[in-house]
């Protein structure tokens, strides 16, 4: 019987796994971009309290938050082509992940916006700043730094959710590990290395966020 852990084999599969890790990181970053921008748009829109729009947005956010990301990704993957929109699995993954997490980041932004004192709004009105100047010059510069740690945590969560995209055939780390394992019939090394790669990136990242959190709390 071969040993449980074969170092030569582990080294030989590492380059392929690292290449797949790059895909995971790309999807994380692009998905985060979607989540951070769309979340902000939702939060600002909801703050405007436009009667019907507000209810619709609320229902949509709750619905997306309460149902599995995997099912939503499958939905995009199978349904969009029916309307003539054919996207690669990579792009579907970015959109799915981004929209799902936008519902979380929108709540984070909302909490941050609510935490800006009323007086700031009143002062902006008193200075007769336009609506857009009030948002970009007064409210958001105070609201966003406050919620950066929470947003950072969601980016880390997204990173760990990328392997869901196995379902639609995106070749990220875990999918690569699965392919290697099924070719060589040696599952121990590829899956263990895949897990360690996640730990290696997400643990320092969450340490960083925790430090940021503590610094914010100290101010």
């Amino acid at each position, binding site marked *: 019987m071969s040993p*449980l852990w074969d170092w030569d084999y582990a080294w030989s599969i590492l380059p392929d796994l690292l290449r797949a890790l790059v895909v995971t990181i790309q999807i994380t970053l692009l998905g985060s971009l979607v989540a951070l921008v769309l979340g902000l748009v939702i939060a600002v829109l909801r703050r405007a309290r436009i009667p019907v729009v507000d209810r619709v947005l609320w229902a949509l956010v709750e619905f997306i938050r309460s*149902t*599995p990301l995997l099912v939503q990704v*499958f939905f995009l993957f199978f349904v969009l082509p029916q309307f003539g929109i054919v996207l690669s699995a990579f792009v579907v993954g970015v959109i799915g992940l981004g929209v799902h997490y936008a519902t979380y980041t929108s709540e984070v932004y909302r909490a941050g916006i609510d935490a800006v004192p009323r007086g700031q709004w009143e002062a902006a009105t008193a200075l007769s700043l336009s609506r857009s100047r009030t948002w970009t010059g007064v409210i958001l510069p105070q609201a966003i730094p406050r919620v950066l740690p929470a947003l950072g945590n969601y980016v880390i969560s997204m990173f760990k959710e990328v*392997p869901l995209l196995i379902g639609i055939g995106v070749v990220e780390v875990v999918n690569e590990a699965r392919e290697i394992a099924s070719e060589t019939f040696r*599952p121990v090394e590829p899956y263990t290395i*895949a897990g360690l790669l*996640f*730990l290696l990136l997400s643990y320092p990242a969450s340490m960083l966020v925790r430090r940021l*959190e503590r610094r914010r709390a100290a101010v």
Partner: protein
Amino acid sequence: MFDNLPRIVSVLLEGLPETVIATVGGIALTIALSFGGGLALLSGTRAVRLLARVYVEAFRGTSEVVQLFWIYFVLPVLIGFQLVPLWAGVLVLGLNHGAYGAEIVRGAVQSVPKAQYEGAIALSLSPAQRMRRVILPQAVVEMLPPFNNLFIQLLKSTAILSFITVPEVTRQGVQVLVPNFGSDIVLIFVVMLLIYLVLAVLITAVMRLLERLAATKVGRRPSSVARERVDDLGGVAAGGGGAS
């Protein structure tokens, strides 16, 4: 368009027992590991604290899908026998969410005012009595709202069990229905998503009830609105690296 609706609903509902078993089993294991892990994180013994810390960071630091594949494909090589897919799934759901839950329990226990400890000591309660009769009943009130979020997260995670051939709702939809009812694809997904939505609403309803019960038990009135705000700022709501 709705001709196939009864057929679609019945095929999806065939997966419901698996989804519910995975959710309920996962929640039970999560609760056990959360309290075990959370109290271990606060233990006076260094080795116990360290062990709990390793467990929490290992499971919060890696992807749930990796954990699932590791337990389903790697563990059998190490221990010599294959786990039933559904139970492998329950194990992963519990281990993963238990790690997040441990931080919730730790945080809630630490948030109980120090005077409560001192009062319990003054009444010469033993450490076990102190925890069980004074600290935990108050901590539980704080824990319930974040646990609600965690359990919904767990429900959503049950969909990944489709990767290891558990015939739950998602697998029924994607493997059985999509290839056979291609023209009703929107309908299939709407019904599928609604099933999850109903389950999530059920979890929230039960948790709200428990919140009220736990709050009245320690003579408090629940103020869940105020607490949800705090969650959002802390990022506890997601399965994220949040709950610290």
